[in-house]
């Protein structure tokens, strides 16, 4: 039995109007995100047997997002951020009309495709959760998406300046809570956020890179 089952039991027997978002019950749709004993988790993947039988289990909605009702939150902030990300812009096809990518080129970005958009990483990120910098910071989920586009071997768009200015990656201080709560085990900080920060360092903070660009007259990408 999982926490979501217990919520459904309460819903059926004690509080018919209790609002709770859910769908697959298999940890793949990302709908039943909530905070269980204060920790952002998927209710369908949290076993009751992991807790002391005498313990009171507390469930709360995600703190980062406005509450619609009970455990249901309004996560539309995320979709608004997503709309601002420049989409995939592939280079021209090969002469035979195909695109070609080697496995080693897609292995790295394949990890980011595992994201189920549960937004637990957005919930736990203190920049959004406590400091409320939704005005300036996109959040970990969108740095995964930006990394998957920026590292794509066929993509030609350049999003580095937007990652700095519009999506505010500098607000992230690498506390890795997003990685800790990710139910898909994506290494959000090590494989997406830090590599993007390093790309920013190449562009904006490294004087040697700046000098090399001036001498060679060309940018790294595109």
């Amino acid at each position, binding site marked *: 039995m999982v926490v979501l089952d217990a919520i459904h039991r309460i819903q059926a027997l004690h509080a018919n109007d209790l609002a709770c978002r859910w769908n697959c019950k298999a940890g793949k749709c990302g709908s039943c995100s909530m905070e269980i004993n204060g920790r952002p988790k998927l209710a369908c993947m949290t076993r009751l047997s992991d807790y002391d039988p005498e313990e009171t289990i*507390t469930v709360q909605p995600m703190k980062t997002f406005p509450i619609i009702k009970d455990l249901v939150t309004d996560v539309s902030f995320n979709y608004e951020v997503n709309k601002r990300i420049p989409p995939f812009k592939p280079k021209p096809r090969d002469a035979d009309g195909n695109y070609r990518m080697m496995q080693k080129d897609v292995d790295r970005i394949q990890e980011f495709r595992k994201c189920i958009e549960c937004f637990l990483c957005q919930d736990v990120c203190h920049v959004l959760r406590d400091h409320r910098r939704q005005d300036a910071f996109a959040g970990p989920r969108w740095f995964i998406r930006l990394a998957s586009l920026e590292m794509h071997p066929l993509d030609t768009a350049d999003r580095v300046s937007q990652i700095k200015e519009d999506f505010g990656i500098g607000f992230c*201080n690498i506390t890795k809570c997003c990685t800790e709560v990710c139910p898909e085990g994506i290494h959000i900080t090590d494989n997406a956020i830090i590599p993007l920060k390093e790309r920013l360092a190449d562009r904006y903070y490294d004087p040697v890179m700046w000098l090399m660009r001036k001498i060679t007259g060309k940018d790294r990408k595109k």
Partner: protein
Amino acid sequence: MAVSTNPADHAPAAGTRPGGHKDGFRATSRKDHWATEPLAVLIGLSLFIIYATWAAFQGNHYYVSPYLSPFYSPLLWVNPDAAGAAPVAHAWFGSWPQWWPAFIPISPSILILPFPGAFRFTCYYYRKAYYRSFAGMPPGCAVGPIPQHPYKGETKFLLFQNLHRYAMYIALIFVVVLWTDAVRAFFKDGRFGIGVGTVVLIINAALLSGYTFGCHSLRHLVGGRLDCFSCSSSCEARHSLWSKITGFNERHMQYAWMSLFWVAFTDFYVRMVSLGYIPDFNTWGR
């Protein structure tokens, strides 16, 4: 199980948000022992900083043939008058300079320790560690941080963290120097041998290598900045290197702690042997 359906029973308490969340430093609904980890990190890093600072300012008993403490390597200048000092021939630039200001302690360590210190201070792992443990930004996941109005993260004062790669370049030189010290420790007065100190120095160089080669900036520079790993033979070679560094990078935290502990232990061991408090078991005989 009896569940109250009276909405009044479920209304948020005063000072909490509608979802029952609290605001403020250390505010959380977590019921586990979340403070254990930041507290352990706080204690561990504090102990290291205190010991390393003390050891760096001693300026003596950092050498006992053929072992040199890693806190004092590379040796730029040597003060031959200090007890337990290395022979002047070991120093890159000879005897301690006459122009050295009198108000600054004479210790070869203070000339070089800022560099590995900068490498660790700007390291992505240690940033996580000390932001949580020392700065409360935040102290734990889903735990209230110290309020900042407005929060700036690494966009203003902390922008210098983006120059971590320069500290890494210097750290790579230190790795070469420490391996050289470890290999030279097999030879005492021209005779090959092995002792406990040799093993200690080798482990120290190996752990510091594991930590340095797992650096996120190094991982980026050798291959991470490429979008296509298969586009040329040089890209293929860089992918191979990137993959190996990724292996170290996945254990960066473990190497960070093990190397931190061991480098302090190595200094402690050399110091104890130099002071004559403990013997060094070796094949040379005393």
